[in-house]
C-alpha cells in the first residue's frame, strides 16, 4: 500500500529562503534591501507590520516592512547596529536571507479616512512609516491635509532623499529638520517637535509616529497641544521581538507583547507603560 507523504506546513517559526534582488546604501550605517522568495510567492505584509529576517549562521532580527517592490518583493531598511544586522547589510545581490512573517498590527489607514493626518518620523523611524505614506498618497482624496514631519541627525542621515522630493512634488506637505546643518541645507535645523509650530489641524486628526522613544514622547506632547488625542495617536514600538508570535515573552511590556499586540499601538494603550522605567 502506497503511503501518502505527510504535508505539514513549516509553521511560523521556520524562515523561508529569500534572495537579495537589490541593495542600496541609505546612510553611512543603513542599507535598503529588496527580497524575493526563492520559490513561491512572497509574504504579503501590510504597512506597519514586520518580518523576522535571518542571516543564516548568525541570527535573526525583527525588521519592519519599508516598502514593496516590483512583483510584491519585500523592501526593508536596516541599520547596522550588531552582528545580525551587520551581516544583513553585507549580504550582496544574489545572496540568501531567511524571512518569517508577516507579524503584528498595521498603521490605521482605514480609520484615518476623512481626517487630517500627521506622519511624524525621527531617524530610522521613517522606514516603517514609508508604506503608510505611500498608502495615504495612493488614495490622497480620501484624507484631509497630510503632513510628513521628519527629523534626522544631519542632512546626510535622511532616508530616501529622492523620494522625499518626489512626495513634495506629489503635493505632500513635507517638512524636514536636522540636528545640525551646513549652508547648503535650506530646510530647518532644530528638534523635530518644532516642525509642529505652524501646523494647524482640523479635529479629529490622526497622527502616525515612529522614532526613538524619547522623541515620540516629546512630540506626542506637542501633538496633544494641537488637539490630537492619545486615542488617535499611533506609534510603532520595537522591543527585542524574537519569536514574532507571542510565545517567548522577549518583547513583553507590562501586560502586552509587542510582537503579538503591536508593534503599532495607540498612545493611550502604551504611553503609560513606556513611562514606567522598570518595564
Amino acid at each position, binding site marked *: 500500500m502506497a503511503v501518502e507523504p505527510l504535508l505539514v506546513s513549516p509553521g511560523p517559526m521556520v524562515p523561508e529562503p529569500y534572495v537579495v534582488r537589490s541593495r542600496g546604501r541609505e546612510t553611512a550605517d543603513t542599507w535598503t534591501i529588496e527580497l524575493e522568495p526563492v520559490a513561491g510567492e512572497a509574504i504579503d505584509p501590510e504597512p506597519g507590520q514586520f518580518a523576522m529576517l535571518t542571516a543564516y549562521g548568525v541570527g535573526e532580527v525583527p525588521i519592519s516592512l519599508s516598502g514593496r517592490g516590483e512583483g510584491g518583493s519585500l523592501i526593508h531598511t536596516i541599520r547596522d547596529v*550588531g552582528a545580525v544586522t551587520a551581516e544583513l547589510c553585507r549580504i550582496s545581490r544574489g545572496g540568501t536571507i531567511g524571512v518569517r512573517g508577516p507579524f503584528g498590527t498595521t498603521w490605521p489607514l482605514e480609520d484615518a479616512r476623512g481626517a487630517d493626518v500627521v506622519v511624524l518620523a525621527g531617524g*530610522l523611524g521613517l522606514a516603517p512609516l514609508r508604506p503608510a505614506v505611500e498608502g495615504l498618497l495612493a488614495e490622497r482624496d480620501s484624507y484631509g491635509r497630510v503632513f510628513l514631519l521628519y527629523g534626522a541627525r544631519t542632512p546626510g542621515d535622511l532616508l530616501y532623499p529622492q523620494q522625499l522630493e518626489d512626495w513634495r512634488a506629489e503635493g505632500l506637505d513635507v517638512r524636514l529638520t536636522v540636528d545640525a546643518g551646513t549652508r547648503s541645507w535650506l530646510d530647518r535645523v532644530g528638534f523635530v517637535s518644532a516642525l509642529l509650530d505652524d501646523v494647524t489641524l482640523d479635529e479629529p486628526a490622526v497622527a502616525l509616529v515612529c522614532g526613538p522613544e524619547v522623541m515620540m514622547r516629546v512630540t506626542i506632547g506637542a501633538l496633544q497641544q494641537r488637539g490630537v488625542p492619545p486615542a488617535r495617536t499611533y506609534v510603532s514600538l520595537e522591543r527585542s521581538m524574537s519569536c514574532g508570535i507571542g510565545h517567548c515573552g522577549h518583547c513583553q511590556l507590562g501586560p502586552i507583547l509587542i510582537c503579538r499586540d503591536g508593534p503599532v499601538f495607540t498612545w493611550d494603550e502604551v504611553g503609560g507603560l513606556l513611562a514606567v522605567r522598570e518595564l
Partner: protein
Amino acid sequence: MRTLDQVVLEARVFAGLDDTFAEQLAGCSQTAGFEAGDTLFREGEPADVFYVLRRGRVALELYVPGRGELTIETIDPGSVVGWSWLFPPHLWHFDARAVAPVRAVAVDGACLRGKCEQDPALGYELMQRFSAVLLERLNATRLRLADLYGGGHGG
C-alpha cells in the same frame, strides 16, 4: 494697513499681549527686510536689536575654523531672532543669516530695556515671555545633545 503694534502680536512670544504693552513695544520697532544670504548680525557685535520674523527663514551659525559655518538652529516666521539684547554684555553669541528673503519687525533693544526700567510691569511681562522661549529652546537643544537618532542597539 496693519499697525506695528498689531504686527508684533503675530509673534507667538507676544500673542495676547496687553494693548498698552503692545503699543510700548511698537514704539521701539520698525520694519526690516533682508535678502537671502544677507547677514542680520555677527558674533561679537553689539546686540542692540531683536527681530520678530514675519516671513522667511533665519539661520543661526557658528563659524568653526576648518569646518566653515555650521547651522546650529533655524528660526521661522512667528518666532523671535535674538535675545542677547536682553542680557549684558549685549553682544551676539552667533551669526544670523537670512536663508530665504526675510520680512521682520526690528525692535530696538536699548529702547525696550529703557521702557522696562520705567515700567516694571512691562518688564516682568516681557521677561516671562522671553523666559518661556529660552526654556523651549534650551529643552530642544538638550534633546539634540542627546543624539537620539544616532547609533542604536541590538542584533
